[in-house]
């Protein structure tokens, strides 16, 4: 059956704005977007009128989340969650966070590392209709060197089978990619370049060798997966891009030659602005730290400079919060968009980042209101082009996924996935 959704305004996800718009969908897909006057009468189509003043746009996408973690702050909280929760429990808690994200307008999420394949299984369970949630694109575990960013020290007597993917050497990383791919990963996460907290003034250091990065990227590309890399910046970031990384995360310090290289190669940037700012807004006592590190203070300033350069060079910049780490799921995504605006982007450009650019990062056929795309939509009462905060108010949101209304006014239409799919 065909459905026409009429709204005072449509944002097509590519920067286009249409007043008095009509979106035609059939089944799970979009058939077309036009002015209401041009759409005319569609025989047999159900007509849905959005509220006066409402905007229809592609569903929001968060390109950097950790569904396995709650986002609670405090000394050792993340490690406690990692050590106290069995993988089935992790998956069930992740299911609730994913559902809440959907209610808040997020129709797709990219999960950037979870223990034990828990979020790979969640992605499959949502697709199979066991539970209601957004599309989830998951990497499984993040590949990391021994003692690396995702292999934080644990006591000598602690073993955590299945929780981590520690690799060393080119062959080790190649195998690491194969193991996550076998488990069902949709893309590969590596930790190639990290911050250096040990020496003031050194804000980055390589964690993986160029050969390791190249091996991981080659194997992932051979298996048609893209590679995303946790990075801090500087020359080791350039090395990551040179050796095949497709999407760089965080990247507070980006050298000019790296900007040029990323532009040439079409490398994505997900600057995760909010998680960096959270270090400065969550009270220190709540974080369980005595003072903010020099690195955090330097990164806070550097990220604006890098973002300005990225914008100038026309890099494809996505929007990712790092929800699950320092911030909760679902409720704060809109703030990443306001931070992009603080960094020089227009509201419309921030929405492009959160929709079409992110859809391309995730490799899903969503993120644009154009013929053939998946009908993953948000109808928001208000105009996000003048006030992005309307996207953070679930009571203003109506959420569609696969051509079906799935959430309305802050709650699910139905917890029955088979209905949402029907």
């Amino acid at each position: 059956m065909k459905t026409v959704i009429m709204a005072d305004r449509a944002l097509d996800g590519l920067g286009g704005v249409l007043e008095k718009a009509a979106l035609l969908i059939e089944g799970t897909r979009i058939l077309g977007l036009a002015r209401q006057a041009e759409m005319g009468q569609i025989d047999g189509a159900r007509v849905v009128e959005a509220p006066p003043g409402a905007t229809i746009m592609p569903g929001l996408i968060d390109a950097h989340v950790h569904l396995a973690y709650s986002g609670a702050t405090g000394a050792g909280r993340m490690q406690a969650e990692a050590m106290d929760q069995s993988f089935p429990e992790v998956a069930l808690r992740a299911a609730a966070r994913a559902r809440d994200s959907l209610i808040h307008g997020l129709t797709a999420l990219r999960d950037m590392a979870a223990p034990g394949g828990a979020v790979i299984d969640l992605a499959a369970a949502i697709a199979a209709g066991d539970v209601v949630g957004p599309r989830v694109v998951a990497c499984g575990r993040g590949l990391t060197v021994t003692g690396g960013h995702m292999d934080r020290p644990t006591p000598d007597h602690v073993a955590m089978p299945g929780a981590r993917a520690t690799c060393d050497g080119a062959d080790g990383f190649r195998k690491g990619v194969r193991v996550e791919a076998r488990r069902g990963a949709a893309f590969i996460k590596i930790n190639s370049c990290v911050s250096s907290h040990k020496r003031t003034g050194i804000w980055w250091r390589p964690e993986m060798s160029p050969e390791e990065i190249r091996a991981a990227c080659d194997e992932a590309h051979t298996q048609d997966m893209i590679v995303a890399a946790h990075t801090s910046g500087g020359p080791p970031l350039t090395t990551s891009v040179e050796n095949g990384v497709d999407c760089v995360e965080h990247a507070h310090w980006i050298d000019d030659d790296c900007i040029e290289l990323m532009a040439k190669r079409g490398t994505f940037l997900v600057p995760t602005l909010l998680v960096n700012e959270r270090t400065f807004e969550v009270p220190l006592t709540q974080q369980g730290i005595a003072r903010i590190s020099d690195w955090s203070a330097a990164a806070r300033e550097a990220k604006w400079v890098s973002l300005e350069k990225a914008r100038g060079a026309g890099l494809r910049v996505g929007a990712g919060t790092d929800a699950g780490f320092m911030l909760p799921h679902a409720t704060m995504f809109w703030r990443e968009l306001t931070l992009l605006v603080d960094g020089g982007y227009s509201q419309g450009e921030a929405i492009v980042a959160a929709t079409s650019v992110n859809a391309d990062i995730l490799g899903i056929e969503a993120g644009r209101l154009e013929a053939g795309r998946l009908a993953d939509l948000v109808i928001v009462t208000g105009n996000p082009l003048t006030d992005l905060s309307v996207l953070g108010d679930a009571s203003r949101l109506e959420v569609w996924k696969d051509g079906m209304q799935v959430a309305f006014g802050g709650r699910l239409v139905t917890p029955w996935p088979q209905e949402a799919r029907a």
Partner: protein
Amino acid sequence: MKLFRADLLIDGTGNAPVEGGAMLVEGDRVLASGRAADIGTPEGAEVIDAPPGGTLMPGLVDVHVHLAYSGAANPQAFRAESATLNYPAMALRAAGYARATLAHGFTSVRDMHAPGGTIIDLATAVSEGLLEGPRIKACGLGLTVNGGHMDQPGFADHMAFRDMNGVCEGPVAFRAGVRAQLKRGADFIKLNPCVGHHGRDGRLSRMEMTREEIRAACDEAHEQGAMIGAHTSGGLPLRVAVEEGVDTVEHGHWIDDDTLALMADRGTWLVPTLAVHEICSATTLANLGIDEADKHWAREADAAKWDRLARARKAGVRLAAGSDAGFYLAHGASNGREIELFLEGGFSALEAITIATANGADLMGIEAGRLTAGRLADFLLVDGNPLTDLSVLRDIGRLRVFKSAREAVRPAASRPRNEKQ
């Protein structure tokens, strides 16, 4: 405060139903129930009426399910699922089954074995309100001897499994097994002391655990305040299980009068799992490829089960309804068959409902199952009268399901069209 009214009130106590009934609910508890005329309408109470001819009754309780399994009616499915599904995936699939179970009117279930702590974790997620489902009490892994009922045989030599079976040998190991499951978060312990004997000499049951093993497991569980449920077939090994302290006897096709008297005396529960037996037996007898010894066992169990039930009733043994859904039976749609089969076993519809509500809640140790003051407000508004036609309880379109006074969302297809959700 909310006031629920219906033409018929079945309060779960086994007392005669009340015509023109009402129940007051405050928070998650029942404040009062009885004749609508006596209860009146307190000022400010929200009034919710069942449809004309409708019934207000406690939520149903299924004390024997396996949420980790799909219920595919295929002897191989159970094994294949164990060997191919990751535990997080198993837990997420079970979340869907739990939602379906609740929508079909079952506000509490007892899970009788699941790999990897999956249903213990699901029970936690539901009780924290993260996911919708019935109250769940879970045992974690069922404890079993090497090669026993829950140490699934037939896998090849090179197959190794982690946290899939609770295999124990000897009294000390069973004690350790009990401790391990309770540490993982189990609410009670499942044992496999006595199994059906399908081969060789034609015996219908045999000991799987020794008396000493059963005693050790029971002692440890009771010491920690946990009940023991036992998979049983019947005969002498069942008697030994009861003597050594098992609290609930599952299946139990053959039980002699002496043992029934002992069960009545000790307050041991019988969960006859009629629904799974019906389908298992029919499948076995209809399948040409199945061994004659299995068919012999099925025929003998068919012949014995009704007589056993009638004698248990006469002896005053406490009974509860457990379907074994997840094994040959789909979750949600099938659980209610167990209640109908009590009717076939000679019980009245009211007795069958009491067995499937108050008795189940008592067995599980939860403050539900009766719509009396102070109890948890787990209840159903039924479009119809189950006392004249029990099958209305299996029609999801006729049920509004409330757990802790909160209504579970039904599939839209089963909602009357004019109802706004």
